[in-house]
């Protein structure tokens, strides 16, 4: 730890090692930076931009930007959180996120992020209401891509951990989607035990036969905001 250095997040000194990203150092220090596409154990992608912080006069993705000595990072401020809330709101508007009928509700990171960022204002964006495919071909897994936020966690998990490459991006721009490596999920190497099936932040990758197995009140985000386990490290 000889070459460890400090930088500041919202005025708090944070210790970092060379090569660590802003988010990694923040997590270790018990400072939560909101994120959706980033997941512990997966390589960073910097796709969702919910972790955008202000550092060195620029807006950067905290999950990919390396920490630097003396860097001054603006994270949990009304201005940052308003931009994040807009991003999350646009994700809600881009897909079909009907929380009341979704089995992921209460365990959904997108929903929990909306709670944390106080997404309650009357909406200003149009609802795109896409009509995307439902793939229920696999005996143990269903894909409801209406809920996909293109975070790419399943892609990275399938490639890097499972070594299968079941998922991948297709299309460009707003048409970019996560697709499977075959005519449907049943004709890929996907198995319900894959790491890729456990990392979906929303209700897109569903394990069949589970349904609403966890009662309301016992779900992941029924008690405590998303990120509270990181913030508790600081106390």
């Amino acid at each position, binding site marked *: 730890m000889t070459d460890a250095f400090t930088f500041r997040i919202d005025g708090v000194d944070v210790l970092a090692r060379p090569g660590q990203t802003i988010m990694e150092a923040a997590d270790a220090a018990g400072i939560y930076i909101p994120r959706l596409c980033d997941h512990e154990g997966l390589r960073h992608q910097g796709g969702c931009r919910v972790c955008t912080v202000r550092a060195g006069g620029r807006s950067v993705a905290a999950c990919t930007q390396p920490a630097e000595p003396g860097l001054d990072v603006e994270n949990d401020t009304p201005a940052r959180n308003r931009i994040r809330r807009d991003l999350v709101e646009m994700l809600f508007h881009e897909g079909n996120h009907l929380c009341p009928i979704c089995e992921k509700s*209460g365990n959904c990171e997108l929903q929990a992020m*909306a*709670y944390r960022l106080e997404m309650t204002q009357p*909406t200003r964006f149009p609802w795109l209401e896409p*009509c995307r495919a439902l793939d229920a071909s696999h005996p143990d897994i269903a894909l409801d891509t209406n809920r996909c936020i293109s975070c790419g966690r399943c892609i990275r998990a399938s490639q890097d951990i499972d070594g299968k490459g079941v998922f991948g991006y297709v299309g460009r721009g707003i048409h970019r989607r996560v697709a499977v490596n075959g005519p449907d999920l049943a004709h890929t190497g996907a198995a319900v035990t894959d790491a890729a099936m456990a990392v979906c932040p929303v209700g897109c990758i569903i394990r069949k036969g589970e349904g609403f197995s966890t009662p309301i009140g016992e779900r992941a985000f029924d008690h405590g905001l998303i990120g509270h386990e990181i913030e508790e490290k600081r106390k």
Partner: protein
Amino acid sequence: MTRPRVATVSLAGCFGCHMAFLDMDERLVTLMARVEFDRSPLTDLKTFTRRCDIGIIEGGCCNEENVHTLIEFRRNCDVLIALGQCAIMGGLPAMRNAIMHADDPLRECLEEAYLTGPYLRNLTRHVPNDPALPLILDKVYPCSDIVDIDIQIPGCAPSGDIIFDTLTALLDGTFHGFDRARLRFD
């Protein structure tokens, strides 16, 4: 002194948000002492008797009549509240938006419901088309797509706590948003 007037209505909803009113339990008595209900299923008044301070909308707009009612509420209420997920983003009725965008799935749906379904007794052999029936819209619209909404109370249905606290804060003039730990979309 006249008490603030509250109007409520259920559009394309399930009445669950109105039922959630009852989850306020005995606090409902406290609230009733502070406000007077105007047009509402609770009073069975079908029209406004005068201008209201607070209008509460449950459900989105799935037919013509919903739109007329919503516009009337906006016209007659100072503060308009969208109560619950259906009013906010369409909710469960909006599931039909996934099929209403194209003619074929819609025709299939109506035919199964009124013509070809196995357990039907439809003597007219027609899809209902009476002028008295409100015209179904092409899709279910959230309230904010039709009129300006001032406050959205999330939930399906919202808890009695969040309804009571929001209304009380509004009446006291101290409403500054929700406690984020209590937000729920389900």
